[in-house]
């Protein structure tokens, strides 16, 4: 055998794509998975990692993480956020196109890829803009975006001018085999709201966003998908009803997938109480029933993926009256602990939880990743599921400090992240 040899031994290897869940070793050779189980005769590792008491699994694939570069480097950079991603066990992430300039030309795609490569941490998959400038009116040059390396296109939550634009977007994207990512929200029903239209928002007098702002948009998109096809990925669902609609659509054979951001499975509108600007997110944190619906959606597999929906901000973005603050949570580093809390509360088994972070998002993107099959790229994560850590300056790598979990003690910590067989993060 030639190349760099790595042996990861003593860990509980969980590879949901291959149905693996056992104490065994993992052998890596030259950036690829050589095999699981006992090392072959003559395997002489250059590096041994003792994973005793830890979980060894494929590296996480995050379907939505803002890096803020180009255009908002005061909030974060590709270097800072991919480093935080690596510390969170994330080896691949999709960044939405709402940068400045928008990801609607091959040049911006190349810039993102080059900066990510030079940072050398998590792999970055840019999502191209569905419409030029995200203005919702004219189609972007999707064929060129695809050639430049985009696997998917979306409008990053910006509204489309009308349903005809959506129809043509779906048709055109399908011509080039591009996945369309839809963050379903009807802008007119959102009506400049900033909190879930429910008891807490009513009490605090915060302009409400009804659940129907999401469900109406899902229904419209599904009606078009039924007619013109897909594939379509519904991103960051927040309502119980939307999960039920996606489940039905999948049962009817529509080519749709969906994800939820981890904090929506943990927090509800109650967290907004006290006008905590770090709980100002879009879509808003919703009711207890919605959170339960999202959890059940993960349990049933209707929601294939848990993403971070990472949105780092500078301090000023959250220093104002609640409605004037900028929505978003910095969430890369809480992705694993929040997912593991779903395991502890019995929503998911550990292999299912890991599947939602690995093979689930890989299948949504239709990429050959998120598994430890022999020959696969050696993207791996090793974590201690019980390790407690406090969210504070000494642990936090993202440039965005805007998390409602600041100061809290969470359980589950990544100890090693390998990307293509290279150790990109090592903690303790």
């Amino acid at each position: 055998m030639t190349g760099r040899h790595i042996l990861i031994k003593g860990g509980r290897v969980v590879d949901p794509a291959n149905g693996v869940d056992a104490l065994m070793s993992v052998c890596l050779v030259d950036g690829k998975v050589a095999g699981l189980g006992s090392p072959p005769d003559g395997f002489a590792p250059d590096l041994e990692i003792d994973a005793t008491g830890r979980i060894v699994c494929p590296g996480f694939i995050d379907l939505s993480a803002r890096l803020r570069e180009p255009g908002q480097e005061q909030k974060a950079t590709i270097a800072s956020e991919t480093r935080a991603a690596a510390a969170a066990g994330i080896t691949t992430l999709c960044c939405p196109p709402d940068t400045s300039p928008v990801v609607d030309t091959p040049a911006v795609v190349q810039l993102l890829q080059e900066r990510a490569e030079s940072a050398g941490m998590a792999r970055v998959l840019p999502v191209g803009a569905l419409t030029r400038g995200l203005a919702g009116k004219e189609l972007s040059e999707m064929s060129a975006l695809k050639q430049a390396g985009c696997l998917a296109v979306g409008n990053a939550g910006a509204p489309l001018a009308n349903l005809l634009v959506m129809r043509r977007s779906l048709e055109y994207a399908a011509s080039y085999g591009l996945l369309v990512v839809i963050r379903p929200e009807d802008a007119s029903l959102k009506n400049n709201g900033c909190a879930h239209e429910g008891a807490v928002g009513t009490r605090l007098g915060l302009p409400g966003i009804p659940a129907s702002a999401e469900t109406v948009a899902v229904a419209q998109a599904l009606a078009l998908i039924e007619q013109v096809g897909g594939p379509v990925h519904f991103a960051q669902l927040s309502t119980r009803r939307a999960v039920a609609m996606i489940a039905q659509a999948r049962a009817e054979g529509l080519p749709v997938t969906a994800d939820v951001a981890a904090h929506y499975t943990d927090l509800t509108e109650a967290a907004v109480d006290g006008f905590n600007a770090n709980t100002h997110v879009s879509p808003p944190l919703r009711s207890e029933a919605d959170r339960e619906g999202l959890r059940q959606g993960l349990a049933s597999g209707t929601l294939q993926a848990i993403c971070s929906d990472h949105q780092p901000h500078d301090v000023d973005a959250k220093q104002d009256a609640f409605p004037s603050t900028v929505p978003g949570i910095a969430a890369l580093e809480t992705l694993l602990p929040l997912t593991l809390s779903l395991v502890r509360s019995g929503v998911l088994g550990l292999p299912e939880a890991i599947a939602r972070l690995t093979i689930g998002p890989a299948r949504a993107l239709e990429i050959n990743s998120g598994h430890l099959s022999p020959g696969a790229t050696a993207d791996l994560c090793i974590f201690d599921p019980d390790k407690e850590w406090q969210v504070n300056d000494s642990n936090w790598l993202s440039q965005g400090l805007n998390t409602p979990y600041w100061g809290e003690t969470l359980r589950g910590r990544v100890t090693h992240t390998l990307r293509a067989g290279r150790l990109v993060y090592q903690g303790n």
Partner: protein
Amino acid sequence: MNKLQFDAAGRLRHFLTIEGLGRDLLVRIMDTAQSFTSVSAQQVKKVPLLRGKTIVNLFFENSTRTRTTFELAAKRLSADVLNLNIATSATAKGESLLDTIRNLEAMHVDMFVVRHAESGAAHFIAQHVAPHISVINGGDGRHAHPTQAMLDMFTIRRHKGDFSPLKVAIVGDILHSRVARSEIWALNTLGVAEVRGVGPRTLIPAEAESLGIKVFHDLDEGLADVDVVIMLRLQRERMSGAFLPSEHEYFARFGLTPERLAHAKPDAIVMHPGPINRGVEIDSRVADGPNSVILQQVTFGIAVRMAILSMAMRSGGGPTEEELQ
């Protein structure tokens, strides 16, 4: 968030919302206000309680009436008062809310009375001011207008005495009303028998019952046997925002006329936070009629605000929250 309103000793420091305040504290505010009502009748309309203190009326949203009554209340307590209409100055030049506050703090003021178009603004300011500064919420977005609620409670007590048997109807645009939210808290805290919210579905917020009201969409039913009718101001923009078809139809269904008022108890009082829209939410025969206490509300507003200003500055020597529990 309720802890924010009290200092380490449990005394009222900020007055941001009625939520979380105990019944005894509300009664004490009214009792203190009662003691101030005579000040306005004196030849020299001043007491020296806040002499040497500087109060800034920080209005990010225009309001003549509320600002004037706060100014009068502060002056009758002998405080120095600064009126700032921020809507047309600093923030319009791009200064952040926090920078505006920091600049004023540097001028060694003691209290901010804040009016802002966005819910939570007073809370945000209270969270960031220096420890010696008190913040009084003069109305924030749709969230709270606690001093207005207290002057309404004071007015009700003057006319009805005991709160416990009362049925109170709040009529109109509850969705957008900070006054209604604060009144509902206050009325329920003071133990009234029933609080009703009356209006068309478009102007009643989601899960309104969770606020502690019984919802009615018919004015006659909502007014049946009530002791107190609180009419809310209807903003004209509600017509263009597709909340209502027309002022004419609103007045026909929810305008308070003598005929509709006849469904309430004969001695029911009619209140309105002002300024009133005659012929839109209220008929002049009612606004100027024998049941109306609208102008008394304005008069009592000064005494109630004097009470709150002095208690928040601890010059009133009020009991601690712990003592009140």
